[in-house]
């Protein structure tokens, strides 16, 4: 990683272009002319960010040079598909580098380079069925009886229900565990297909905000991009006409998210259905509650909150490090 003086140089270049410096990065490249940094850019995971170029060097080969380096670094780190979130007016610069525009929402444009969405849809071609299909998107951290109730309710109302499990690993339970528990809990439901969202569920964890002027815009912009990506790119391919969500009486973020979602889906003629939570012991079942019971080792309480498959997992050896992690952080 770059030394402190290089980082400072990059930071002042980024800020001089009206962007915000985000220290969360895996790779940083700078391009110099006569010892002066004239362009820089960074990568965090599969997301490129903070591309900044001095005005005199814009429209030259600098952008191609920076993006080439960042792309090769990303590929070496195992990311064949790379995202860039930027201002809509900057989208054409990236399109001329073979980035494809995925979605635009207000002050944000999302583009990708590499096999990307087309390959994702191609990989799932066998699971795509005609009809009036539905979708549920969950993190499933871990899968609860609340999730099961939502899935069962939704599955009754559509031809096929796609249960998308968010790929992004920012949760205590790793993706492969969350995915497997969702599959195991729904094997009895013949019209339910469990899918991986891949990169196409935009979480707050991967959404960079360096190009947004105001921090209070960030959460709304992230939600808008996520929902539009679903409504414009995912739903039509899977013939999804209804999206089901669990009611969120407590969490204000999720409640705000549901509000944005219902509005955007309506614009795209996709029905939005909120399913009331089921209760256990008088209060709603949530993954938060399950995690608490799990780290407190309340076995009897857990039995009333999760399906058999999740219960078995929580009692198994591989679950122990997850409990330790939950306790310490």
């Amino acid at each position, binding site marked *: 990683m770059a030394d402190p003086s290089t980082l400072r140089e990059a930071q002042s270049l980024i800020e001089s272009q009206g962007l915000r410096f985000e220290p969360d990065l895996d790779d940083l490249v700078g391009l110099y002319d006569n010892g002066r940094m004239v362009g820089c850019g960074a990568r965090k995971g599969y997301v490129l960010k903070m591309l900044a170029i001095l005005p005199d060097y814009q429209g030259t080969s600098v952008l191609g*040079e920076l993006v*080439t380096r960042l792309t090769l670094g990303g*590929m070496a780190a195992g990311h064949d598909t790379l995202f860039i979130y930027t201002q809509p007016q900057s989208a054409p610069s990236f399109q001329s*580098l*073979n980035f494809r525009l995925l979605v635009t929402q207000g002050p944000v444009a999302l583009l990708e380079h*590499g096999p990307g969405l087309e390959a994702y849809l191609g990989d799932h071609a066998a699971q795509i069925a005609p009809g009036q299909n539905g979708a549920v998107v969950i993190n499933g951290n871990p899968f609860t009886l609340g999730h099961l109730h939502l899935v069962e309710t939704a599955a009754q109302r559509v031809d096929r229900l796609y249960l998308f499990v968010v790929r992004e690993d920012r949760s205590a339970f790793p993706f492969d565990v969350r995915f497997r528990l969702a599959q195991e809990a729904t094997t009895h439901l013949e019209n339910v297909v469990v899918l991986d969202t891949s990169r196409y569920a935009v979480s707050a964890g991967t959404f960079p905000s360096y190009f947004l002027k105001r921090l209070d815009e960030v959460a709304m912009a992230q939600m808008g991009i996520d929902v539009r990506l679903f409504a414009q790119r995912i739903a039509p391919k899977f013939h999804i006409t209804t999206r089901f969500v669990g009611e969120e009486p407590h969490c204000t973020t999720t409640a705000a998210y549901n509000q944005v979602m219902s509005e955007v889906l309506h614009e795209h003629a996709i029905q939005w259905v909120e399913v009331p939570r089921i209760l256990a012991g008088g209060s709603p079942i949530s993954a938060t509650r399950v995690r608490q019971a799990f780290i407190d080792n309340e076995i009897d309480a857990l039995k009333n909150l999760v399906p058999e498959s999740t219960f078995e997992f929580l009692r198994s050896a591989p679950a122990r490090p997850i409990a330790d992690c939950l306790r310490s952080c």
Partner: protein
Amino acid sequence: MHIRRKASSGTMQSSDLMVTVEPSDLLQIEIESTVKKQFEHLIRAQITATLEHLGVTTGRIQISDRGALDYAIAARIETAIRRASEE
């Protein structure tokens, strides 16, 4: 030659292309190009001819092209394949 591992060559600069090759049981050629509409068939023909010349029959070949000329395509493909086939 045989593609043993993943390798790349080239750049995203104008008139150049970036090539990534990796092992695969099939021969897959994926083309992104700023001039795809007009020239995809010619780009594909150049890639196929170069692979034949090098004796490559399987592998996944991805290219991101910005209007490279034939000889640049041939050179970048050959470089990526040579890198990918090293012992």
